[in-house]
C-alpha cells in the first residue's frame, strides 16, 4: 500500500513535469513576442525591453522553463513581490500571480462540481438501478428511452432554454451567480441551482444508462445465479452480488468525470456566465498567456493524476483480486 502510493505519486510528479515541458515548449512554437503581447498597442522598444526583463523573457527558453518549474517547488521573486510556492508565475496579461487567480476561481468550480456530482450520482444511479431491477417493464422502457434522449442533449442547448423559462420569462429564479458559501449558504445554493440542474440532467442520463447496462450484465453473471440458487432473496442478490460487480465501471467513469469537471467545466461556465477555472483556461490560451495556461494545465493534470490513484485504490477495495503494485 505505502509502496504503491510512493510509486504512483512519484510517477505523477514525473508526468506533471513532462506535461509542463510539453506545454511550455509547444507555446514557444507560436511565432509571437510575448513581451509585445503583454505591452499592448502603444509600446516603445524601451518598455518592451523592461517587460522582457521583468518577465524573464530575455533568458534562454530552457532557463525560463527551469525557473518556472522550480518556482512551483520553492517559490520565486518577481518585481511585484515574492510569489510563494506553489508559484505558477505571473500572468503576462494581468500581471497577477497565476496561483492567486486559480485560488480565486476554484471555489466556483468546486461548488459546481460537487453539487452536480451529488445530484447526478443520486438520480443517475438511482434510476439506473430501478430500471435494471424492473428490466423489461414499461418503467424500464420509459427510463431507458428518456435517458437516451436526455443524454444526447448538450448544456449549451438545454442551459439557455432553462434560463429563459425560469429566469428571463417568468422571473421565478435569479440569474446564476456565484456567492461564496461562507458569505451566505442560501444565496450560494440558489445561485448554483440552475447550473447544477442543467449539468446534472445530462450527466444523470449518462449514469442511468451506464448503471442500468452494467447491472443487467452483472445480473447475468454465473455467481449471481449461484447466489439465487442458494435461496438468497432477490433484493439481496441485486444489491450485494450484482451491485458489487457494477461498481468497477461506475467508479472508473466517476473518476474521469470528476477530474474533467475539476479542471474546468468550460461549456457550463460560459453558458451561465460564471467565472471558474474553465473560463480562466480559455482566457489564458486565447491571449497566449503562457504562465496562466501552464498553471491551469498543471492544475488540471494534478486532479487527473490524483483521481487516477484514488480510483485505483477504490478498485482494490471493491475487488479483492486487484493487487496494488
Amino acid at each position, binding site marked *: 500500500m505505502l*509502496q504503491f502510493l*510512493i*510509486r504512483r505519486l*512519484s510517477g505523477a510528479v514525473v508526468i506533471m513535469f513532462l506535461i509542463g515541458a510539453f506545454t511550455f515548449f509547444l507555446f514557444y512554437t507560436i511565432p509571437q513576442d510575448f513581451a509585445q503581447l503583454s505591452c499592448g498597442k502603444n509600446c516603445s522598444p524601451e518598455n518592451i525591453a523592461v517587460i522582457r526583463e521583468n518577465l524573464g523573457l530575455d533568458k534562454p527558453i530552457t532557463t525560463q522553463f527551469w525557473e518556472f518549474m522550480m518556482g512551483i517547488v520553492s517559490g520565486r521573486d518577481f518585481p511585484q513581490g515574492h510569489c510563494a510556492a506553489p508559484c505558477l508565475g505571473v500572468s503576462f496579461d494581468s500581471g497577477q500571480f497565476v496561483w492567486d487567480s486559480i485560488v480565486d476561481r476554484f471555489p466556483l468550480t468546486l461548488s459546481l462540481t460537487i453539487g452536480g456530482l451529488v445530484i447526478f450520482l443520486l438520480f443517475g444511479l438511482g434510476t439506473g438501478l430501478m430500471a435494471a431491477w424492473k428490466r423489461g417493464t414499461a418503467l424500464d422502457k420509459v427510463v431507458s428511452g428518456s435517458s437516451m434522449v436526455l443524454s444526447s442533449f448538450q448544456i449549451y442547448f438545454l442551459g439557455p432554454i432553462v434560463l429563459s423559462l425560469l429566469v428571463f420569462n417568468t422571473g421565478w429564479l435569479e440569474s446564476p451567480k456565484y456567492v461564496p458559501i461562507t458569505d451566505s449558504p442560501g444565496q450560494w445554493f440558489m445561485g448554483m441551482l440552475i447550473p447544477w440542474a442543467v449539468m446534472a440532467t445530462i450527466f444523470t442520463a449518462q449514469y442511468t444508462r451506464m448503471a442500468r447496462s452494467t447491472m443487467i450484465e452483472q445480473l447475468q453473471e454465473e455467481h449471481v445465479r449461484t447466489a439465487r440458487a442458494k435461496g438468497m432473496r432477490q433484493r439481496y442478490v441485486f444489491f450485494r452480488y450484482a451491485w458489487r460487480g457494477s461498481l468497477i465501471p461506475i467508479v472508473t467513469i466517476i473518476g474521469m468525470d470528476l477530474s474533467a469537471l475539476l479542471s474546468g467545466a468550460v461549456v457550463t461556465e460560459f453558458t451561465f456566465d460564471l467565472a471558474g477555472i474553465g473560463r480562466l483556461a480559455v482566457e489564458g490560451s486565447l491571449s497566449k498567456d503562457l504562465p496562466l495556461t501552464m498553471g491551469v494545465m498543471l492544475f488540471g493534470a494534478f486532479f487527473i493524476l490524483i483521481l487516477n490513484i484514488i480510483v485505483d485504490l477504490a478498485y482494490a477495495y471493491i475487488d479483492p483480486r486487484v493487487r496494488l*503494485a
Partner: protein
Amino acid sequence: MSDKLTLPKPQGPVDGAAETLLSVEGLTKHFPIYGGFPIKRKVGAVQAVDGVDLTVGVGESVGLVGESGCGKSTTGRLITRLLEPTAGKVTYAGQDITHASRRQMAPVRSEIQMIFQDPYSSLNPRQTVGTIIKSPMEVNGINPKGGVENRVRELLELVGLNPEHYNRFPHEFSGGQRQRIGVARALSLNPKLIVADEPVSALDVSIQAQVVNLLQKVQEEMGIAFLFIAHDLAIVRHFSQRLAVMYLGKVVEVGDRDSIYNRPRHPYTHALLSAVPEVALDDETEDRERIRLSGDVPSPIHPPSGCRFRTRCWKAQDKCATSEPPLVQISGNRENHLTACHFPEDPTTEARDADIVLDPALAALEKEGE
C-alpha cells in the same frame, strides 16, 4: 485385448527406427515474474517447461498428455516457435531452429503447422472460409498447380466440407465444421508436422469422433507427423503411437502406447490412468487400480525440489526431495520406454489389494463408511 500394437498402416513408422523429423532437447521456457520496489525487476519465474526432451519421427503421431499447468501447450508453442525458448534446442529435419530468425524460419514455417483448441476464436470472423484457407499460401508465396482457389476447394473437400462453401463466413458453420476449416488451413501448405493443441476438447462428444477420424485420415494418408496435445487420455491413446506424460513442466514418462497404458511405471502415470472414468461395458473392465491423489498440482513458480511429483506421491522417500530422477530406461522397461522415477511402480494397471487414497477428506469419509 489391447495388445494389438502393430497397425496396418502404409506410411506411419512401425518402430523407433523411423527417421527423426523433430527433436527437442532440454527445452525450457520460464516466464519471468516482475515485482519489487522501487524499481521493478525479475523476482521469479513460472517454470512452464523445464528441460523437455522429445522426438517425433517422420509421419509419426506422438501424444503429449498431462493436466493443466503441466506445460504441454507451452511445449507445442515453443516447437512451432510461437514462443521463444529460454533454453534448449529444437531441431527440425536436422536444422537447428531454436533461435532461427524470421527469414531462416520461413521455409520451415510452412512445414510445421498448428491446429488450435477453440474453433471459435482461432478463425477470423471477418474473413471468408476461402480467404482463411488460402492466406497461408499467399503469405508464403506458394502457387499450387491449378491456382490457389482450386487448391482451397480441394482442401475443403478433403476435410469433408462442401467446396461450394468457399465464400461463407465462419459463423455459418458449427463447431465441428469450424475445426475442419482449421485443419484445411493447416494442410494448405503441405506440412510435414502438425502440432494439434487440444483439437477436439471444445467439441461435443458426437462431433469429437468426426474430427479425430479426419486427423487420423490426414496422418495416415498424407504421412504427416503429429504432435497431439490433449488431456483426454483415451483420445490420445486412440490417436498416438507414442506418448509423453508431462507433469509440472517435465516429461515423467515416455514410451509406446502399450508401455504407457498397460505397463506404466511412473506413479503419476498410474494415478492419471486410474482417474480416467471409463464406461463399464462389462464386468471385466472394472478391476482397474484405484488411486486418488490429494489436492491439485503445485504452482510452477515454486515447484518441489528433486522429483516434482513427490509432494503428491505415495512412494516418495527422502531421496526424491534431494535428487531429480533422470528420464531413463529403468529395469523392467521395454526399449524406448523411459521413466523418471526413483521408486517405480509395477508395470500393470490391475486393481491392487488396497486402494491408494491420499485425499484426506476421501480417506476420512471412506474410513467412516466401513
